[in-house]
């Protein structure tokens, strides 16, 4: 089944296959704008993201990816426009129960053990004790840290810390996960592992929104939005974007689209 992209309009006749549940809107952004003084970080952004998607916000540094994520998480207040999550206007604290957030920094407690970190973040989401116990085991298996349960985070390698950070963002079974540059400074092997995790989340119906400036890995996304200077310049399935611009990679597609946009 082929449907026309309902949220983009910029790329024109891009179509995409129904690999996710396009009937359930999870995130809806309308005319979202963020300015810092005279600098416009995000300009009049419109986006709709559906259930079970891995949506990649793609763009070079300073294109406004993190700003968008932070507005959706309620860490920044939009200057203009609105954002909805699960049909709820933001900011909405109770809705955060369904949201998982993995910040750009590793954002875990270095002086505590893996176990304590997972217990703490699980506890903050109010998981009952037995559920928390079960989820902790599940998460340790998921990110392959079973043998490190009682190690101090400060003794772990960077890759392990990243995995723990992801586990902390997922322990409360969120249905929407924001991952802000989860693969920066991560070796290729772990990156492949991470994309495996994201894929298995999407299969379970979890919506994953990811920012990255690695164009090659964005091929794993079900849809990507290409950002440049705070504006969405193109949106669609990676294959469609490549087809449309007649390029071999998303990187070339991005360059071709920016050129097209400037003329």
């Amino acid at each position, binding site marked *: 089944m082929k449907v026309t992209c309902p949220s983009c309009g910029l790329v024109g006749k891009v179509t995409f296959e129904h690999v996710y549940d396009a009937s359930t809107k999870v995130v809806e952004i309308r005319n979202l704008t963020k300015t810092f003084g005279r600098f416009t970080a995000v300009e009049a952004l419109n986006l709709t993201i559906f259930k079970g998607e891995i949506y990649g916000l793609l763009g070079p540094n300073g294109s406004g990816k993190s700003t968008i994520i932070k507005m959706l*998480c*309620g*860490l920044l207040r939009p200057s203009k426009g609105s954002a909805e999550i699960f049909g709820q206007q933001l900011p909405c*604290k109770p809705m*955060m129960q369904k949201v998982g*957030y993995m910040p750009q920094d590793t*954002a*875990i407690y270095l002086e505590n053990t893996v176990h304590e970190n997972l217990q703490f973040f699980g506890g903050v989401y109010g998981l009952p004790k037995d559920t928390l116990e079960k989820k902790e085991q599940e998460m340790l298996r998921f990110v392959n840290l079973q043998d490190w349960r009682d190690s101090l985070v400060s003794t772990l390698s960077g890759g392990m810390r990243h995995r723990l950070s992801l586990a902390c963002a997922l322990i409360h079974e969120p249905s929407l996960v924001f991952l802000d540059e989860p693969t920066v400074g991560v070796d290729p092997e772990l990156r492949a592992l991470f994309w495996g995790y994201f894929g298995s989340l999407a299969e379970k119906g979890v919506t994953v929104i990811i920012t990255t400036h690695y164009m090659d890995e964005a091929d794993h996304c079900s849809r990507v939005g290409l950002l440049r200077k705070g504006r969405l310049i193109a949106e669609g399935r990676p294959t469609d974007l490549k087809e449309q611009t007649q390029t071999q990679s998303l990187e070339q597609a991005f360059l071709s689209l920016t050129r097209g946009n400037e003329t």
Partner: protein
Amino acid sequence: MILIFGYTFGGDVQGIALEMVNEDTGIPQGSLPQLPDGLFLANDITENLNEEILSIHINSDSADARQCVHDGKAWVAIVYPENFTQNFLTAVLQPGTIPQPTIELYLDGTNPTIVAAVLKEITGAIQNTLSELSATLNITETSMPITVEQVYVYGGGETRFIDYFAPGVVSFAIMMVTTMITIILFVNERRNGTLQRLLVTPASEAEIVVGYALAFAVIGIIQSIVVLLAAIVLFDIAIVGNILLALLVILLLAFGHQGLGILLSAGAKNELQAIQFIPLILFPSILLAGLFWPIESIPSYLQPLSYIIPLRYGIDAERAIMLRGWGFGEIWIDLLALVLFAVLTLSASVLLLKRKI
């Protein structure tokens, strides 16, 4: 800062509140050939008191004057009895017939610096007065035919500096530890991103602040129990008042300074910058809150500054509880100030966390 240092360090004690009851009737003009102008010995002694050091309030009721010392409104009450001058003259002119005349002092003995200053000033004034009279009455000033009877309302006259210092140190330690740990922890939370992560959870900003407060309550109580135990065991300090009330004051101090720490942490990007806040909190507290020397020894134009330093109220309350054995009814103003400080800084820090750019 250097100015405050210079002016507060080593300053003489000034403006010690004193209640004076003068019941002395004196002797009228012409009643004694040696003293044609009559004599009001109490007045003469009073004139020799330095009014910069002692802030004298005249009281007609000796019971009320004593009550003032009891309530902490004055450090000392001085009572000249009715026949003070007559008794003095009788004792001098016909030695051995009656006991020496007595000046009664009611002292709040909880502050050894102030007690020493008061006694020095009063004995000095008596000696000066006697030396003025020595020529006319043919007495030697060293014999000093006046007894100064000291009655200690609090402290029993044996309060050592360490007794006075301990309640202050307990409060000061809590203040420093709480403020510094909060600043450093919050700077870390911000820098690590764990604070952002917490803010994206359903937990509200108030819950985060209260959670921190509860943790500090535990740390604060354990720390003050250790300090107090050390004070009692090592320095043999007697705690007169209710220890639970003392702990309550500690808690309020801890809460307020935790809020202050969160607020200050917003101004620091890393631990190094956070450390720069130490002198900002440390020095005013050491210098102006009455930790080492009484607030009365700060120059009078700097004394009002001490009212805006929360530690002052903590130290004040702790001393009142531990040395005077005061209860809730007497220290409620200190408690109120501490509660206000805590409410103010904690709610401001909730607002700070809620603030979104």
